[in-house]
């Protein structure tokens, strides 16, 4: 199978008051289907910048980005929006749910931008919420949900449009360890179902869930290793 993602010589430089900040400074990376990758590194090393780059929220200053054979670095705003909508699922550290909308409506949002009819939207959103174990919380608003539940809504929202890749930037960073473990269980089982997942984390024990760990330092890949296969608990 062809590569899912290919980054070649990707640079992302910011000009801050005349000084150049090299958030990404020449990254080469290939990601295949159904990989489970964790990205680690000290604060400011470029982890989020790399996630945004992969998630087509940001465009490289230099370099080549191929996503399923399409050249992302040449795309205009509308094409980027479309690829984010169809191919990418985002999970943020701070959940980023719409506060006034119920869980169900939050999960529906990507489908609205995909121009999917109301009845189909509801069906898909319900299915996604069922997958993260929130069938009984569909009509709750974010402030009526715990942190772990909110993050599960966010995961359902990321998954609802069947993306090619799930990107999670410190998904457990705002959660207590018990909720964090729950979230990781969900990500593990999503990976088992064939999803491709990249997650950013500071915690070694979270990173261990992944099959491959990439270490960033000063915008460069310092280490990229295949970690031992996770022990799967068979019920």
């Amino acid at each position, binding site marked *: 199978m062809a590569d899912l993602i290919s980054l070649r010589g990707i640079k992302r430089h910011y000009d801050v008051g005349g000084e150049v900040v090299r958030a990404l400074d020449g990254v080469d990376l290939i990601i295949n289907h159904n990989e489970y990758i964790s990205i680690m590194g000290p604060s400011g090393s470029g982890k989020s910048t790399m996630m*945004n780059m992969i*998630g087509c*929220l*940001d465009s490289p200053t230099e370099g080549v980005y191929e996503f399923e054979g399409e050249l992302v670095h040449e795309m205009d*705003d*509308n094409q980027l*929006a*479309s690829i*984010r*909508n*169809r191919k990418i699922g*985002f999970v*943020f550290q701070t959940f*980023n*749910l*719409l506060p*006034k909308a119920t869980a169900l409506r939050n999960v529906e*949002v*990507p489908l*609205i*931008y*995909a*121009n*999917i*009819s*109301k009845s189909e*939207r509801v069906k898909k959103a319900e299915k996604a919420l069922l997958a993260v174990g929130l069938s009984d919380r569909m009509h709750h608003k974010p402030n009526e949900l715990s942190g772990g539940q909110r993050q599960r809504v966010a995961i359902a*929202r990321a998954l609802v*449009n069947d993306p090619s890749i799930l990107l999670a930037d410190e998904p457990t960073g705002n959660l207590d360890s018990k909720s964090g473990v729950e979230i990781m269980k969900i990500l593990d089982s999503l990976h088992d179902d064939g999803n491709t997942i990249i997650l950013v984390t500071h915690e070694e024990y979270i990173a261990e869930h992944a099959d491959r760990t990439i270490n960033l330092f000063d915008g460069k890949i310092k280490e990229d290793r295949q970690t031992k296969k996770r022990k799967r608990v068979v019920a």
Partner: protein
Amino acid sequence: MISLFWENLRISLGSIFGNKSRSILTALGIVIGVLSVTLMGTLISGLDRTFEKSMSFLSRDVLIISRMDWFGGDMDWWELRNRPRIKEDYVEQLREKSQFVAAVAPMAERGGSIIRGDKRIDTRFFGTTPEYMATNESADVKTGRYFTDGENRSGVRVMVIGGDVADALFPDEDPIDEYVKIGSHKFRVVGVLKKQGKFMGMFSLDNQAVLPFGTFQRLFSRRGWMNVRVKVNTDNYDEAKEEIYGVMRQIRGLKPMEKDDFAINQSATMEAQYKAIKLAIGGTGLFITALSLIVGGIGIMNIMFVSVKERTKEIGVRKALGATQSMILGQFLMEAVLICLIAGLVGMGLAGGLSLLINQFFPSSMPVGLAIGSIIISVVIGIVSGLVPSYQAARLDPIDALRYE
């Protein structure tokens, strides 16, 4: 894109009703703007219709030969004062000498009180010939009859009264063949005229009374106001007027270099004057009220900037989930248009209610075109004032927006 439309509608309603007091204050500017514009328009159109209605007594084919111009002009007062009076025999001279006369009648006017028992009405009355009816299409006898040539010649004391005069003097009886008095003179009422409606109380037969010319001349001063009313037999009013000017100059014996010492008035003169007044009042009024709409629009723009700022993070999230620039633009534009539309409808409703109230004193009712127009204006204001903030929202960088706290 239908689902996106409903979603945007839902978001906008949520935003508008989620910030009730803010939305109300913002919308107030537009409400007031639309209210004043529609009210202004309603009043002007009311003015228009009354004017047209009351002008019907003076159709375009009627010329009125008088001593003075209705609307002054720049004539010297002394010169005007010394102009000779209009005389009775002009009627027959005009009929003979002009080829454009269809009907012609003298009108000798004065004011006074008409009395019936303990009731009286202060009004105007005029003496004319039966031919008057042929010069005035809008004059029509409702009950009874008009006076005859015979009555006119012999000077009998009969009278045809206007609708308002009849109402005032005969609130609950039939005026026909009853008697009324002007001063010490007793008249028999032979007819009542159909009501015409009036333009600010002016120029209407409703509150006048008509006497035979001969009777009027015999009983009242021969020195009162006198006009000659000519109905022309052509569509070419200018040509007719030109010719009748010539005939009048000939009657008056004016030499070529001498100025006219009479005036020919017509509805066009009145219309021109009315239009000038209307333009002045309406133009100024609409300008001022339009200013209030602009102020309202600025308020909307301001609140939309606030709304975009407040929801920067939401915009970032939506973009991350696949919203394009135009989808975000649509969302905020919808919000601006919706506020304006709601405000416009409220303003229009208030204007409609107020115009019903005003209608008690002055004829006014909101024309449909104006109602539709004010809704369109509201939408346009929403679009115009929402465009820049919405564009700003649409152009936000997704990462910057996501980071915004």
